[in-house]
């Protein structure tokens, strides 16, 4: 009985503490900078085209084969009178968010820092009615970066913090 009294005092002490509930859909907790939702393609604002050159590095490294990449000759390349230094550029890009396991490997293997994990709530709240709607195309993948809605974090692999 004394032990039960102790239990009840413990619960009472919690009763008078403030509750810990987060009012999720109303109040979004600020996400840490490194938060990983789903991969996104980044937009090169200087030239106004994606960073991605369609080199297939991420596609090959993906453990779950959720990506499909197709490249093309860049119509905006300097050799044809454009402004871009990229000879090849991404043509079509699909990521199946339903299959992606958010392992960050595509970000790590990318040589152009063209892909990053979405670290906003938009990347987490992706529920749809049909699984096919989770296959994102190039336009959907670049929108957030294009209109500056994310501040991406690209990890510096294997490098220690300074001092």
């Amino acid at each position, binding site marked *: 009985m004394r032990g039960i009294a102790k239990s009840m005092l413990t619960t009472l002490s919690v009763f008078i503490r403030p509750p810990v509930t987060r009012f999720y859909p109303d109040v979004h907790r600020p996400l840490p900078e490194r938060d990983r939702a789903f991969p996104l393609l980044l937009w090169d604002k200087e030239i106004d085209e994606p960073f991605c050159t369609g080199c297939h590095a991420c596609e090959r490294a993906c453990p779950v*084969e959720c990506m*499909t990449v*197709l490249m093309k000759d860049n119509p905006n390349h300097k050799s044809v009178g454009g402004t871009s230094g990229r000879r090849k550029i991404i043509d*079509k890009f*699909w990521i*199946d968010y*339903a299959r992606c396991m958010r392992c960050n490997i595509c970000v790590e293997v990318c040589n152009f820092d063209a892909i990053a994990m979405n670290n906003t709530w938009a990347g987490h709240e992706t529920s749809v009615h049909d*699984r*096919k709607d989770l*296959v994102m195309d190039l336009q959907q993948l670049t929108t957030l970066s294009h209109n500056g809605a994310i501040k991406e974090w690209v990890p510096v692999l294997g490098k220690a913090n300074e001092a």
Partner: protein
Amino acid sequence: MTSEETTESAAPVATLDGTIWAEVDRALAGITATAERGLLDVIVHVPPAEIIRALKALKADATLNFDYLRSLTAVDNEEDGIDVVYHLYSTTAKHNLTVKATLANDNLFIDTATTVWRAANWLERETAEMFGVRFNGHPDPRTLLMPEDMDDTFPLRKDHPLAEIEVLQGEGMGYSEEDQ
């Protein structure tokens, strides 16, 4: 130092100095066991026919006292047969040993270790269904993880095919037609 290099080197016995092989060799008197030095533990190869005798001897030996079966599994070496691998540990003497028995592909039968440790029960059931190794005298030879009727195909063998991945994008989404 890898195991391959160890076996290829001229004096493999020398690398076993300072290990428990001397004790193991004494305990396994009468059994044709060979040893090599692994990266952490000594690996002992025992013929499959004598495996239970060897395991019992290793458990019963007063100084070795391998009373704890860490893990029991198999490795499919394709044409070289299937290795059944026992990882032993002694909770009193605190040493490890890896015991291997290589089964030929046409004779995947080995005696059950459940008579030595009860821990072997489920591990053997799993190994049996995954590799098609048959454990003679197993008290409960049902499947463990697989469906009850799945006794003709062995998922962890190297010749078992992986499932096709269903691709919902690219050509599956009608890309190829508009490209061509």
